[in-house]
């Protein structure tokens, strides 16, 4: 964790939509960044450094787009850094930003993650016809569906669990004014009747493609104490961790990846969490297909093996359950890929700060933000809390 304490002192995000036709890429980032700065009561000139994250550059068709975005984010004459760790990037970007403070290098760091998927199509960018490379027969859903099937078999889970997750997250999303999907008519039956895209994944159990950005202002202990003195609650970063493992290795477990569990164990150790189910008050986890909720519940130590789906079925992960999961509506409601991980980290911080509005859980003292990417192989997590670490 380093010598210096770090806290989230400003949070901003855009309204997420399929196409944000009103703003340029720069405008999209600035909408999130300016909200974060306003929340922190700072201006561009207060920022020491900027850390930017996004998923592959082909999404917007700009190579290393942080270069053309440098002045949009007030970086002139400042350090600017670009992280890319596949789908986990929004989380790892926030972690890299926090380390600039915990290492004692900077006091105030702005971090921004984004994707403007409407500039092209994710389906195109993710399926460039690379010669001699075995075709992926059905996109990301086609990649993850067999692993979900393996989970269902291994955990002996009933079919309706994925639908319960989709219903819960879409209903949570109705409480989040920034969420992309606001499906007021959603019901268990409408999900059940939606098209089976990649059996066992239904259309209504799948994340959307979104334009959106998320930004955080991170501050040193001094900066956070000042914010607190002025009545703005900081969310203290109590632990950060990242783990990577190979995409295609013979020993790897694609259902419950070892890297994900090691990442969780590391971040809990730092945050003093010994019993995750008891010690954590709220979780934002990266669930792009509904079945990943029970899978991650097991992988992150909230449930014994084979028991994650029982937590979901019993309502433990609902807003009024003992471990609310994805209060914001999660990736199932909003998926600007590069920003999706940071949105999880941001929501965890909002819960701790008590600023989550209608989707606020009462009395959150410790919250977990989680992101993953690639073929369930890159993991980034943080724990934020009301107490100084």
């Amino acid at each position: 964790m380093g010598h210096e304490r770090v806290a989230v002192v400003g949070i901003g995000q855009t309204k997420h939509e399929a196409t944000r036709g009103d703003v340029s890429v720069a405008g999209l980032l600035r909408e999130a960044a300016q909200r974060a700065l306003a929340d922190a009561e700072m201006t561009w000139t207060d920022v020491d450094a900027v850390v930017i994250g996004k998923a592959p550059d082909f999404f917007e068709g700009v190579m290393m787009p942080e270069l053309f975005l440098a002045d949009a984010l007030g970086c002139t004459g400042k350090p600017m850094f670009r992280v890319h760790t596949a789908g986990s990037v929004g989380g790892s970007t926030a972690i890299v930003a926090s380390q600039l403070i915990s290492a004692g290098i900077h006091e105030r760091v702005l971090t921004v993650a984004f994707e403007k998927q409407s500039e092209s199509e994710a389906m195109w960018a993710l399926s460039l016809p690379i010669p001699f490379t075995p075709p992926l027969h059905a996109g990301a859903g086609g990649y993850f569906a067999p692993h979900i099937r393996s989970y269902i078999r291994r955990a002996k889970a009933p079919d309706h669990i994925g639908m319960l997750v989709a219903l819960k997250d879409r209903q949570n999303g109705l409480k989040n004014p920034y969420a992309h999907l606001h499906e007021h008519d959603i019901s268990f039956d409408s999900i059940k009747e939606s098209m089976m895209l990649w059996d066992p994944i239904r259309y209504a159990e799948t994340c959307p493609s979104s334009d959106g950005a998320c930004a955080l202002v991170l501050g040193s202990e001094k900066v956070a104490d000042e914010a607190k003195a002025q009545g703005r609650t900081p969310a203290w970063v109590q632990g950060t961790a990242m783990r990577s493992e190979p995409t295609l290795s013979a020993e790897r477990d694609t259902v419950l990846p070892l890297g994900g569990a090691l990442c969780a164990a590391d971040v809990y150790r730092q945050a003093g969490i010994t019993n995750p189910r008891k010690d954590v008050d709220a979780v934002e986890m990266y669930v792009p297909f509904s079945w990943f909720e029970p899978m991650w519940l097991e992988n992150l130590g909230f449930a014994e093996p084979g028991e994650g789906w029982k937590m979901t079925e019993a309502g433990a992960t609902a807003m009024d359950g003992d471990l609310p999961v994805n209060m914001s509506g999660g990736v199932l409601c909003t998926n600007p890929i590069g920003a999706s991980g940071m949105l999880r980290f941001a929501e965890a911080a909002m819960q701790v700060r008590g600023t989550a509005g209608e989707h606020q859980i009462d009395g959150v003292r410790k919250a977990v933000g989680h992101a993953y990417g690639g073929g369930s192989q890159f993991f980034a997590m943080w724990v934020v809390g009301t107490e100084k670490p």
Partner: protein
Amino acid sequence: MRDIAIISFDQTPARRSVPELNEVEMLMPAIHGALAKVDMTIDDIGFTCSGSTDYLAGTAFSFVSTLDGVGPWPPIQESHVEMDGAWALYEAWVKLQLGEIDTALVYAYAKSSPGDLPMVLTRQLDPITVAPLWADSVSLAALQARALLDAGKATEADLAEVAARSRRSALDNPNAQLAWDRPADDLLADGYHIAPLRKSDCPPITDGAACVILAAGDVARSKVSRPAWIRGIDHRVEPIHLGLRDLTVSESTRIAGEKAGVAGGEVDVAELHAPFSHQELILREALGLGDGTAINPSGGALAANPMMTAGLIRIGEVASRIWSGEANRGVAHATSGPCLQQNLVCVLEGEN
């Protein structure tokens, strides 16, 4: 700040094209070489970080398959930047500052040969007002060179001197791609490539990879007799639009050099990431380097310019000269973006 040193460095021989190897196949010898030089394996490494960009070879998530070359099993602590490996090294240095780990491995690689590099680089430019013009990287550098000539800060002969000296120095670098001995006057007799630049003022297009290992304090001392300590490291950026910058100076390099403490002592050697000859002159001025400093003894980017890697190689080249005792204090520089838009400066020092 914790004492962190560069303890190992390896690179693949720079070549115009390495078609017989994919990226991970090309990269692995650099990783294995850097580890072997200090008798380490990946199991001795606390953190791994890499730099690369998808656009060069046209494959999304290129870094995902190259990670296989590290063997991240059991799972490891790892990160990737879509930047030159010098910035990956910066992230590793920050991570080491946190005090939980003592070693880090940094690698970078690029295969520029599959595409038309100067045209691929146009995709970095403002996507609405500039990129559609397909203003290639050499043309933009030529605009900068003309500005420098017009300002009276350099002559074409000065550029030729840099070009000639770099390729002459490269004769001693077994990994260089362009190495020859031709006097500057001779170069001036060549026609323009994109005026006012001649071919000799421009970098080669290179496929290659490099790996650097960092270690903290006593771990570094246990591995090499004379670690190359990072005494300062900083990076800064400017707007991408050429019209918003004074092209004859590098303000971001100047700030980074000041923050990294370049002026804090004699600089024996400097490896400057100047892909075009005139850029060396701009960088020398920005860093305040005088005649006492040996500039680019490796031949620099004019002798081998693997994208995303050439900056990391500059750091490795300076470190090598500190390990050998050839230099006591050196400056390494990395750049990114058109016409020196973003710059990193690292000050390295040996212990006496």
